[in-house]
């Protein structure tokens, strides 16, 4: 009995140390994550201006009605959706393809990976800046495409045409992240036991058949993870679009939601409206993360 009591005391002492170690985290995340999050939702119901001394007025759902009824918001939703789809499909397919090819290589794996990965090391701003120069009317991009299509002297208006400027931002992004997601896939494929592939080879399955019948189904945890990561990152894209518009590209076609939030808050000083868009973005991401968690739990159950 006595012994048990001292154990209890020790346990209590230990658990107190646990709290002490965790405390900085609790304080930090309360102040810099939870409070701002609640504040953003709260502000979305107020008619609040940035740094204004006037007392903000509660206006209920009016901000939401105004935002959801404005063309500007739907244009941003469209820009973000287009960007996400336009990046997702090629990025997913290409990185999976390269990962499959890399794993089947005998020599030079590391070199290829390093080469593909090197753009991911750059800052997003630097990546956008390089492409800004290459996409100039007199730049490399026009020369290369004209050489390929044998159409000398045509300007493809990479940075001025409404459609082309969207394509340009997608190119920058795909270029920058290709190596990064390829490596994620390579890691995922590496986790598939060799024995499964060997068995299939003995059964006479060719490389393409093996890829679709074995690699792809067994890779599902990685494909779910990569898909959600690409989508979440695309929805948060900011630097490329910001630099392009600063460099003279038209704002409308690439006015993605994050850029719109930034401009609404910092240029128009309308925090209420910016908070509405922030809240909508948050709800969207929450949904995506929930989907990912559900899928990954299913996978665990399946194993």
């Amino acid at each position, binding site marked *: 009995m006595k012994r048990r009591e001292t154990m209890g005391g020790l346990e209590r002492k230990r658990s107190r140390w646990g709290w002490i*170690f965790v405390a900085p985290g609790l304080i930090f*995340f309360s102040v810099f994550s939870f409070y701002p999050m609640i504040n953003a939702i709260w502000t979305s119901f107020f008619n609040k201006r940035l740094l204004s001394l006037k007392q903000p007025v509660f206006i209920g759902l009016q901000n939401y009605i105004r935002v959801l009824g404005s063309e500007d918001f739907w244009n941003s939703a469209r820009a973000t959706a287009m960007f996400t789809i336009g990046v997702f499909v090629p990025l997913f397919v290409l990185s999976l393809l390269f990962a499959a090819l890399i794993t089947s290589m005998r020599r030079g794996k590391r070199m290829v990976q390093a080469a593909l990965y*090197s753009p991911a090391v750059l800052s997003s701003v630097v990546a956008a800046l390089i492409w800004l120069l290459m996409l100039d009317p007199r730049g490399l991009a026009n020369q290369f495409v004209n050489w390929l299509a044998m159409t000398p002297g045509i300007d493809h208006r990479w940075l001025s045409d409404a459609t082309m400027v969207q394509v340009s931002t997608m190119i920058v992004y795909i*270029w920058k992240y290709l190596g990064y997601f390829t490596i994620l896939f390579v890691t995922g494929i590496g986790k598939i036991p060799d024995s499964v592939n060997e068995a299939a080879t003995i059964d006479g399955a060719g490389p393409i058949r093996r890829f679709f019948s074995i690699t792809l189904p067994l890779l599902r945890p990685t494909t779910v993870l990569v898909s959600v990561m690409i989508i979440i990152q695309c929805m948060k894209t900011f630097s490329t679009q*910001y630099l392009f518009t600063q460099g003279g590209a038209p704002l409308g076609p690439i006015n993605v939601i994050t850029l719109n939030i930034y401009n609404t808050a910092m240029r128009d000083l309308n925090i209420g409206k910016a908070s509405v868009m*922030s809240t909508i973005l948050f709800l969207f991401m929450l949904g995506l993360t929930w989907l990912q968690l559900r899928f990954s739990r299913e996978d665990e159950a399946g194993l």
Partner: protein
Amino acid sequence: MNIASKSGIAAASLRGVTFMVVCGIVLVPLLFMAGASLMPAIDIMHMPYRWIPQTWKPANFLRALAGNDGAWMYLRNILNSIIVSTTIAVSTVLLSSMVGYGLAKFNFRGKNIVFMAIMATMMIPFETVMVPLYLIIVKAGMQNTYAGLIVPFLMNAFGVFIMRQYLITFPTEMLDAARIDGCSEPRIFSDIVFRNSGPAIATLAVLSFRQQWDNLLWPLLVSQKEEMKTIPAYIVKFAAEKYADEGAMMAVAVIASLPMFVLFFSLSKYFLGGSAVYQAGKE
């Protein structure tokens, strides 16, 4: 058999050629950056483009550092980036390993709720909280200060997650032995746990450093003064200026990228093929 191996060789060499082309295309913009940083602006926009500079112009780097107005602001902004990113890397490592240790090696009521709550913050996009965060900083009078640039990033949920996962496998017997020897809890943490978490700490430090080196949005909000800007904000300003010289622009880009290239490729064994990459590409 002979035919099979021949077709195998053909397939392998086809793959090799494909890869060389792909890698070439991926590397072209990097070569362009390196080459153009040493060329006069007229040559960069020359048609057809000449890869080897006709006239060398290393003065681009001088112009990049001096700025278009000759105020040498880039040097100051590079220093800012180094200060901010280093401080954040150090504090992230320290605080995350503390919290991660608390979550991995202690039992207390509500531990799981604490862990879930911290993990939940990963779902909050920075864009959602940036305006309230900015208002906090304004209220605290930390605009245009290092504190304003650093404090909101002192630690992050991802760091806590990495450290917790790493420390869960840490041998508990070692901790108990130290306790029996009368070692205090803070000493156990600093002398035993922290000293023996090298790989996880290195990875986390590099990733946090890089994330801040790349951060554009927050410095745009917090630093209105030129001398408190960081590299990404300087790049945007430099590129948007009317009389910006293309060669100098690329020199600015090269200077901003070199430290990252050195850092990543000297540690490439962690980043090519490790799970560390998971966070590396985050914007």
